């Protein structure tokens, strides 16, 4: 009886210039789970880039497909490990991908930082960091709070801007204007 195919999941926004980081993430996944099939979640824009990087199975979201359907599709592959490609070495932002990994229910997450810039004097190549589900949940919670704070700050800015612009542009005079 043949062994069932093991799957690992790659989560990335596949932005322009992130090709090297994605390749490093694929290599890191191959080290953690040798012989496993790499599955990626992408958008209609990022899917061709991921395909060019040799990923055969891509679950495409966007174009009106609900996130829940993507999560269910990913769960069918039962990935044990997921790699998230970040664009910063401190693993900031990317809440969308972290929440996705949490909802899919993977056991371990490889957080892959970007490779150093070629012009950089830094020679130390940052290594992927493995975290468990609990730490991932903590990260999602902390970033969720940060998101709420940012939304509150942005709402304050926008409300003030709207009020000021409408007040400044109000018609002068009108019914109660004093006439000479």
């Amino acid at each position, binding site marked *: 009886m043949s062994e069932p195919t093991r799957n690992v999941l790659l989560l990335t*926004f596949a*932005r*322009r*210039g992130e090709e090297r980081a994605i390749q490093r993430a694929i290599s890191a996944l191959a080290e953690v789970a040798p012989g496993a099939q790499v599955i990626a979640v992408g958008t209609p824009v990022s899917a061709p880039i991921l395909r060019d990087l040799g990923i055969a199975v891509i679950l495409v979201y966007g174009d009106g497909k609900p996130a829940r359907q993507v999560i269910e599709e990913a769960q069918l592959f039962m990935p044990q490990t997921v790699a998230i490609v*970040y*664009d*910063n070495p401190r693993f*900031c*932002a*990317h*809440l*969308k991908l972290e929440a996705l990994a949490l909802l899919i229910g993977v056991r371990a997450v490889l957080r892959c930082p970007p490779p150093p810039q070629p012009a950089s004097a830094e020679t130390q190549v940052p290594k992927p960091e493995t975290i468990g589900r609990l730490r991932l949940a903590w990260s999602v919670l902390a*970033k969720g709070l*940060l*998101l709420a704070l*940012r*939304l509150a*700050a*942005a*709402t304050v*800015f*926008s*409300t*003030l*801007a*709207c009020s*000021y*612009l*409408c007040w*400044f*542009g109000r018609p002068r005079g009108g019914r109660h204007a004093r006439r000479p």
Partner: protein
Amino acid sequence: MRATLIIINHNGRHLLETSLPAAVAAARAAGDHAVMVSDDASTDDSLAFVSREFPEVRFLAFPRGGFGGTCNRAVAAADTEVAVLLNNDVVVTPDFLPPLLADLEDERVFAVGCKFLNPDGSLTHALGNRISGEWRRGLLSLHHETDPDLLTDTCPQLYANGGGMAFRRQHWAALNGFDDLYLPIYWEDADLGYRAWGRGWRVLYEPRSVVYHDQGSTMGRLHRAPEVELISARNAVLFSWKNLLDRGLLRHALAQQARWVADDVLIGGLPNRLAALRAAAARLRFAARRRAQERRERVISDLAILARSRGEIA
């Protein structure tokens, strides 16, 4: 109509070596047209190069004024009916000028933009061709056409790229040129085109006026520094605050901008959207003043501007 070809320069002596001879040749080929180099506080030997190699070219040296400020000063210094703004990394073709002047014969036309090609003649990632826009997530999302089949006819566009555009100086003066709200750079040309449409004038795209633009020399907008991304995003916000005169659309846009900031945490990447919003708020007073002025001059609604610039309505 006589024209002045104005090349905007900042420490670009090496770029002038290629772009200036082409501009001088095109001006001669089309008749009695002038060429001017408007210099934004260069510290290289641009002045010496132009004086030595092209004594017939006017060289105007200005103190640091950013892209828009330098353009405004240069256009004010010109004495022809038409001015043609060119980046110092834009190389014109010998016959690029006559089609632009022919389009400007129509008094309803404010400006005409050139056809921008990469130095190898391709259109990949080329910016400035048949530009259209739509309001998305509270900001004006710009589309630069790169399909060669759609770039064969003269047609309306939202604005002419400031790196290669011809316009009537009289209309430019009525619009007060590029707005210094956007200093040092980015979005001033989009703002100018939007305001021109708002006054009932037209902006055209002219595919017969071919210029070559080496975007690699201007960072290509592909890999920009965080500071540059921040300025561009701040100016995109300011553009909406200043130009979106429909109150309902403005409220909707501002709500969308708050949600746009959520992307800082959700997806990351550049720019820092909250910082851009904060930087725009620092210029809110000036945006409100320009907005009030714009309200007095506008004769066309926001939605009609975009529809007209896409050629959907006459």
